[in-house]
């Protein structure tokens, strides 16, 4: 090898080395995104929701919920069931507040048949509806702690929810899936001693709310984790079709229990619809806490004024619903739940469309997750409060 050759060689080598180091610097400065797949099996998703999040470091660039892992086809199944059989299915939609699922469907069927439940049945329906709301939302209040790392509140929630479930069991015979509502009224009257026991339990639930407020909502860490996180402004909330506490937390004064005149007993008692101007995670949690308190108030007042009379209207033994279409929605624990029932005059519905609250509530996830940190994904999901059965029906 001559000296010139080696010189060229060295120059070449230097050039290549410079290029390589340049390339390496560029590679090192560019950070690659990471796609984090939260779920379908993940403790924060209450079941099998999957959230695909593209991250830049710990910051979410893009997130999308992917549902359908627990789809059970209830809308289709209702077509091959008779009307009284449908309630057994739709109990399983929002499994924490099952009785509340039955009511709008039964009301829609009653609307088509042009009958109305007797006043006593309406009262008891409303009481059970609110009890299932308490059973549902009180678990949310405990679960909120677990999502944020505090393990104790959830056991308090389970402890006090047990009393409510006992009441529901006493009245209906089922703790989770009462299957108690009938077209034209209820299966049975209330058991003896129900009224007194319910009053005691409502007092316990109010204590539970105070306890949770002290333990969790007053905690500075909890506030710093939820205040200003996941803010959903009023117009966005309306555009995405949010309902229930999520909508009221964004400052929209909208509650179907008050705004609709259904054959239920809400209009006969004094209670308040709470709204919060902030629209952040804290507001959503706080609204739900107030909701439980209001529910205990509603139940307490309804217990005082249960009218006497039958719990079942006169309905034919074999129920055939006349031809027609009806839409009834109620303010369920998770938000607006409605049934659009199309009847062709048969024993069962021709077609049913179920509008469940959680499906719409999580549709805001891509919007609200943009730019939040990974830990906040969990806070926001917890505060949006969905139940998988309610998303995937």
């Amino acid at each position, binding site marked *: 090898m001559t000296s010139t050759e080696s010189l060229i060689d060295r120059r070449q080598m230097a050039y290549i080395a410079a290029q390589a180091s340049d390339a390496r610097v560029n590679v090192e400065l560019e950070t690659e995104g*990471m796609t*984090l*797949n939260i779920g379908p099996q*993940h*403790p*924060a998703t209450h079941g099998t929701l999957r959230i695909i999040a593209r991250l830049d470091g*710990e910051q979410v660039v893009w997130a999308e919920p992917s549902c359908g892992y627990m789809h059970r086809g209830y809308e289709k199944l209702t077509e091959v069931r008779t009307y009284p059989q449908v309630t057994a299915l739709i109990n399983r939609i929002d499994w924490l507040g099952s009785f509340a699922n039955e009511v709008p469907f039964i009301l829609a069927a009653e609307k088509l048949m042009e009958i109305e439940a007797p006043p006593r049945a309406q009262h008891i329906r409303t009481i059970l509806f609110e009890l299932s709301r308490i059973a549902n939302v009180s678990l949310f209040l405990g679960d909120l*702690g*677990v*999502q*944020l*790392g*505090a*393990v*104790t509140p959830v*056991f*308090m929630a389970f*402890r006090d929810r047990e009393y409510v479930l006992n009441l529901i069991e006493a009245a209906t015979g089922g703790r989770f899936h009462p299957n108690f509502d009938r077209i034209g009224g209820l299966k049975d009257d209330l058991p003896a001693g129900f009224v007194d026991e319910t009053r005691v339990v409502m007092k316990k639930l109010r204590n539970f709310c105070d306890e949770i407020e002290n*333990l*969790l909502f007053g*905690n500075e*860490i*909890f506030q*710093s*984790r939820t205040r200003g996180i996941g803010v959903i402004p009023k117009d966005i909330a309306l555009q995405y079709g949010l309902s229930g506490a999520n909508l009221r937390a964004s400052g929209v004064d909208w509650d179907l229990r008050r705004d609709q005149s259904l054959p239920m007993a809400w209009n006969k008692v004094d209670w308040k619809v709470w709204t919060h101007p902030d629209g952040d995670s804290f507001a959503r949690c706080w609204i739900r806490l107030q909701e439980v308190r209001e529910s205990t108030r509603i139940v307490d007042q309804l217990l005082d004024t249960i009218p006497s009379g039958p719990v079942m209207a006169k309905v034919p033994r074999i129920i055939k619903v006349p031809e027609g279409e009806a839409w009834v929605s109620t303010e369920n624990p998770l938000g607006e739940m409605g049934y659009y029932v199309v009847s062709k005059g048969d024993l069962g519905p021709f077609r049913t469309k179920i509008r469940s609250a959680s499906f719409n509530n999580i549709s805001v996830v891509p919007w609200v997750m943009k730019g939040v*940190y*990974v*830990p*906040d*994904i*969990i806070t926001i999901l917890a505060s949006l409060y969905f139940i998988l059965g309610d998303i995937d029906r």
Partner: protein
Amino acid sequence: MNALLAADLPYWAQSLLRVLGGIVAVLLPAGTIVYVFLFKMMSFMQSRLGPMEAGPYGSLQLVAEVGKWLQKEDITPERADRFIFKIAPLVVLASTFLLVAVVPFGPDAWFTNFEAGVFYMLAVSSVSVLGILIAGWASANKYSLLGGLRAAGQLIAYELPMVLAVIGVIIQAGTMNLQQIVVAQNAGSIFGWDGLGNPYILTQFVGFIIFMIAVQAELTQTPFDMPIAESELVSGYMTEYSGFRFLTFFIAEFATAGVFALIASVLFLGGWGIPFAWFDWSTIDSVDDWMNVVGPLIMVTKMMLLAFIIMWVRFSYPRFREDQLQRFAWKALVPISLVNIMVTAILKVAF
């Protein structure tokens, strides 16, 4: 222990006894803390009974749990960095053993009487960071990686307030030897009254609080458990570990809690000692030999007290987000501990 053994035992026998003593000193607090606090106290706080079936009041539950873990399959993920994945739990546990080596349990009951004990303690406590970081990296799991990175950031951030909190004690005691710190507290006096000695929790209260907060963060217990975060990262760096390796992590977590409680009791609560004035002792040489038996019991009592506080906080609080806890460390704890050092130094010169 040294003086007791030095007389007639050969070196290998002494070493063996020390190793056995170290294992006891690590495993016994871990087991006690898990049973008393994790199983029982947590249950009572949550209005349930906890384990009741295995042994009287579930006292043998831990044996059952360990048996269960030992039976489980030792799974290594396919894409894991195998060697590193396997040694990571041992690195974390080793840090605990290294820590316990300098803790004095009595006038002669110590594993090693090390002049720069505090310095050594602070140095080896960060070895566990390495274990956690490599566990998170080697698991080949995104959740573990996030957990490992968070843990590294957090543990390094809280190392600093911990060091700064201890400096106040060092200034006051004038030594870095943990044994000497115990003696300085018990032989001391408060404005001439020596009935209580001078436990540094009284003069270094700010330092004590900062130290306990930093310990909470070092142990990655709630409210600083962002690296583990069961509800979001599904146990972070421990996600992929099963069976015996998970058990190792688990023991390390609670053993380290115990050892840090021991160290905190040495630094702030007077360690193994009782006020020397009670028995007219003046120096460590005049302390009676029976303190070698009573001392460890006193230490365990104080350890349980401090571990109770650690666990109490753990079960009550929600967790910080990692940027919030970094801010808390750098903007609150570090300045406060710096002021604490300054005030301590000024008062040390003044008195």
